[in-house]
């Protein structure tokens, strides 16, 4: 990655964070905690980060953007801005999930097959299992209310894993879930800073590093899309239409 320049940002939680990666080095970064106001703060923050290094938009090779999971509005703010910047600059925007970022930052002692669990709203947990850097299956969610787990999409995990065993977990609630799923975990648990998703610190430098690898790999890069995991709340219309008589 010779002299690659990437600008990365994330607004998936109550924060606005950005980082400029030049030639693999995080040369400038900014992070502000905020419950709202990311839509107003994001672009000026990006301009500040660039200006600090005397960087100009035209020299960027790619945009890296955090796609969540997280606050729905927050991930749309970042993804929409990334798509706008990418279209305006004629460069790719690369979406990186919080699962991928946490996996990338996880300590090596967790082994190859790592389950990343992120707290969602209320009692929902989001999870994804990785084999090395690659996901074993699409992200899923499970309900941890009460004593047992409602596995939801996790039921399909053993099939996706096949003969592979989960070797490490990250996230407070992942350990018992991984054990239930037949994981063989030699006590290697990496606890995130908190069990609440909004407190997990997404580091834009990690997003940039992952995006840089993807860019150098040369495979086609799809446009970034928010990773909601949870479907939109919407109930089909309950009012039945009248019977039409012949």
């Amino acid at each position, binding site marked *: 990655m010779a002299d690659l320049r990437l600008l990365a940002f994330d607004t998936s939680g109550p924060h606005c964070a950005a980082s400029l990666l030049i030639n693999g080095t995080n040369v400038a970064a900014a992070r502000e905690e905020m419950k709202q106001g990311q839509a*107003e703060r994001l672009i000026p923050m990006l301009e500040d980060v660039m200006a600090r290094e005397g960087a100009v938009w035209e020299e960027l090779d790619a945009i890296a953007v955090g796609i969540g999971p997280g606050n*729905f*509005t927050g991930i*749309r703010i970042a993804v929409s801005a990334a798509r*706008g*910047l990418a279209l*305006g600059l004629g460069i790719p925007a690369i979406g990186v999930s919080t699962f991928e970022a946490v996996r990338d930052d996880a300590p090596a002692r967790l082994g190859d097959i790592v389950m990343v669990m992120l707290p969602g709203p209320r009692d929902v947990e989001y999870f994804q299992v990785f084999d090395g850097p690659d996901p074993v299956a699409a992200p899923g969610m499970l309900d941890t209310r009460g004593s047992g787990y409602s596995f939801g999409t996790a039921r399909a995990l053993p099939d996706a894993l096949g003969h592979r065993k989960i070797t490490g977990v990250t996230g407070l609630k992942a350990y018992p879930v991984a054990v239930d799923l037949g994981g063989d975990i030699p006590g290697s648990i990496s606890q995130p800073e908190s069990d609440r998703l909004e407190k997990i610190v997404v580091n834009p430098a990690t997003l940039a590093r992952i995006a840089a690898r993807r860019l150098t790999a040369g495979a086609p890069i799809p*446009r970034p899309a928010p990773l909601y995991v949870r479907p939109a709340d919407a109930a089909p219309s309950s009012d039945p239409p*009248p019977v039409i*008589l012949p």
Partner: protein
Amino acid sequence: MTRTLTVLGIETSCDDTAAAVVRSDRTILASNVADQTALHAAFGGVVPEIAARAHTEKLDHAVEAALAASGHALKDLDAIAVTAGPGLIGGVLSGVMLAKGLSAASGVPLVGVNHLAGHALTPRLTDDLAFPYLVLLASGGHCQFLIAHGADRFERLGGTIDDAPGEAFDKTARLLGLPQPGGPSVEAEAAKGDPARFDFPRPLLNRPGCDMSFSGLKTAVLRERDKIVSDKGGLTRQDRSDLAAGFQAAVADVLAEKARRAISAYLDHAPEAPAIAVAGGVAANRTIRAALDRVAADGGLRFVAPPLQLCTDNAAMIAWAGIEALRDGYDTSEPVVARPRWPLDRSQAPMLGSGKKGAKA
């Protein structure tokens, strides 16, 4: 002689993802609208979260297509105009953030446009109408009579105190088992019916002023429908057509009578070339259009109805409103803020959604 401006317009405030390129000589170089009807069909109405999700992943494609069709590169444009409200905030935010990204990347200045101003200024794009003119904005989300005195100066004479007429058409379609969107399906059904069989209410006609109400009308349709269903076990095709025709006639009567009052208030301003324009999807209804046309003729006003694709939500009107704002000295250094509520006439008391968040429209 002013410089010709070429502006990109972006619209995402409801369920249409739209981008357009318009020139200040009133030429629409490209106008691209991707609707989401199919996504919302099962839910009997627009679901805000579903709409926001779709806008986020469709809008950049719509912009690319509009730019390509216009033959202009983004950098060659004079401004990017984006709907900043009022509307469903998730979609508005997607549009505003994409526009901010485009603007930062290209250095092309950004103009935040009021969606309602887009509708209200459309008659100037299509027919070069001179201020002041009267405009009836009637759509799925809005219904108001406005005098357009200038590109940023609107006087609201009255509006709906509850549902918008487009919403009433959608709800009536649902009550009668007709497909969404309700406007065209109720109109087609009404064409086969007898508008006089049911005596539906004409709400607020007995009160002075230009305020309207459409919520009780929909309840009246429900009551008549249920009466027939409990008598016969269902609706005959004729029942359905008659209900649709009766409903449509009531809406047309209310809009026509309130238009008559709005015209008289407007004529007090002694406009040189008096005109009334319609905007919004409801203006596509032929019965309503004919009723308004008659009232306009009675008052000696020119009647202007833009083509349908410029009456319903689109981005050409947003680009045009941006052009008008720039000509009026709009300050593009002001940050654009997405807002769900943004009344056009800031001098009037809020009509809808008062409460702590302020007026919706």
